[in-house]
């Protein structure tokens, strides 16, 4: 199947054949604590389909070599696969140019790259960087560090009780004239899907450069960076059915070209001289110092193709059914409080139960083979906002089922019987 067909396929919805999908994830057949594993921690890291695992293995077994600059055949083969993965990413997110796709170690690495390579050049004393109160620490701390260094200020847009962004406050804070607006596409804690296109338009209208943290969007929905209109878009491979240690920074060509490099070393240079100084390579290499994570890039390419093959619309519909059902059933439980119940949410369900510590609930779910995450999910400001120590978070991927939702709900009920 050619790319275009897969691309079109990805926009059509048809019910996922979950058992066929599950068969591709060996880990889902295992037991923990003597119970069948019910993996509901997708938002922390997705499991990997066999296709991704085997692609990496195949690479390491049969054609590993360092990439670029190599005159020999293996190096050529590895370089081809590595660069093909880059173009898979390009098509997947609809970037105009291949060289707008920069390999990084993950979303965190990508945001830090922008904060340091772009930020230290453009953020001056007194400037405002606008983020939101729902951001992941990865989209908070790099800006705080930058602001501290430059004498700038980080402002954060409020969130409403249902976990949506406070639109009025966003408009208000845009009046501060932020140099940069950075926000998440989809919240890893609340499940909220932000209207990224609209927010970008408003921010650009106010003259800001816009960075979108797409870590939780990429695995679940069609993303088109040109439609969104953002300057930067980042995501991690390991949350999108891909390998660990690899991620992508997309940046508009013009802005990337104007940026100085961040990491220095091999690959990113043109001429290195101790006497005359050093000149840098063009995009994308300027930002890819050192030997890249070759097997990771190849694996991520395969993961995105795999995801497109499933049909992103189908995946999203499937996950929405699961999370709606979970919300519906859990909602009947006495003392249940959802943290984040926006009209538009992804496959993430966060909750607390009155009088019960999330950590206790998580522990007893784990005993029943149910892997959920508890705690602050790297979003302490949300916890501060709702004045809670943490939440229990169930997050769904393409491989989860309605039966697993039932197991979750029964598990919660059993745990609560013990805890209250």
């Amino acid at each position, binding site marked *: 199947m050619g790319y275009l067909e897969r691309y079109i396929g990805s926009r059509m919805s048809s019910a996922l054949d979950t058992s066929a999908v599950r068969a591709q994830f060996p880990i889902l057949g295992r037991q923990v604590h003597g119970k069948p594993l019910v993996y509901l921690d997708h938002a922390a890291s997705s499991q990997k389909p066999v296709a991704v695992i085997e692609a990496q293995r195949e690479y390491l077994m049969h054609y590993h070599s360092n990439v670029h600059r190599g005159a020999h055949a293996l190096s050529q083969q590895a370089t081809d696969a590595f660069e093909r993965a880059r173009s898979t990413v390009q098509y997947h997110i609809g970037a105009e140019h291949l060289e707008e796709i920069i390999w990084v170690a993950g979303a965190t690495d990508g945001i830090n790259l922008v904060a340091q390579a772009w930020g230290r050049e453009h953020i001056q004393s007194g400037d405002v960087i606008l983020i939101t109160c729902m951001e992941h620490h990865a989209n908070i701390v790099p800006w705080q560090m930058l602001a501290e260094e430059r004498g700038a200020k980080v402002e954060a847009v409020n969130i409403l009780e249902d976990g949506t962004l406070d639109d009025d406050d966003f408009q208000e804070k845009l009046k501060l004239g932020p140099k940069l607006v950075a926000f998440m596409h989809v919240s890893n804690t609340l499940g909220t899907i932000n209207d990224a296109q609209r927010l970008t338009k408003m921010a650009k209208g106010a003259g800001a450069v816009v960075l979108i943290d797409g870590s939780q969007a990429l695995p679940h929905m069609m993303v088109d960076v040109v439609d969104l209109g953002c300057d930067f878009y980042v995501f991690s491979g390991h949350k999108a059915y891909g390998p660990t240690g690899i991620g992508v920074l997309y940046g508009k060509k013009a802005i990337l070209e104007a940026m100085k490099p961040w990491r220095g070393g091999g690959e990113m240079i043109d001429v290195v001289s101790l006497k005359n100084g050093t000149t840098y390579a063009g995009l994308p290499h300027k930002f890819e110092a050192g030997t890249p994570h070759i097997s990771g890039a190849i694996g991520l390419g395969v993961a995105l193709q795999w995801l497109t093959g499933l049909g992103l619309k189908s995946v999203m519909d499937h996950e929405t059914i699961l999370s709606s059902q979970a919300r519906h059933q859990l909602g009947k439980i006495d003392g249940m409080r959802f943290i984040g119940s926006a009209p538009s949410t992804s496959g993430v369900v966060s909750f607390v139960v009155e009088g019960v*510590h999330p950590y*206790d609930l998580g*522990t007893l779910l*784990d005993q029943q083979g149910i892997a959920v995450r508890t*705690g602050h999910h790297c979003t302490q400001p949300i916890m501060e906002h709702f004045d809670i*120590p943490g939440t229990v978070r169930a997050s769904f991927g393409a491989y989860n089922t309605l039966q697993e939702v039932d197991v979750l709900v029964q598990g919660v009920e059993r745990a609560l019987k013990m*805890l209250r």
Partner: protein
Amino acid sequence: MNAELQSRQEQIVEEFSFYEDWMEKYEQLIDMGKELAVLSDEHRQDEHLIRGCQSRVWLSATRTEEKHVRFYADSDAIITKGLVALMVRVLDGLPAKDIAESDLWFIEKIGLDKHLSPTRANGLHSMVQQMKRYGVAFQAK
């Protein structure tokens, strides 16, 4: 080693070996947690906080005339509080010196070290360390 400490540990091992299923062992821990007195405000101070990753533990201690140690402890999570209660039950009222030098073999014996999640295991470890530190401090005074 202190004979009382030994017999307390043996007693707990016996109680915990009664159940095979860890859900039931957790039930026991939860019950122990519920039974532990809620801490008075005097002891529930930030200075007595052992910050774990997900739950909080308050631990303080006083010394009797004979250099025996009384522990006061609590947690905001009930399983953690059960663990706190377990530790208090083993060490409370013993001589400072014996606490400082205690070998808490029951933890391994009942499988807590293996079974607890790393964050909980770390929390338990911090708690034990802190209790021993009280032992050392009170022994010296």
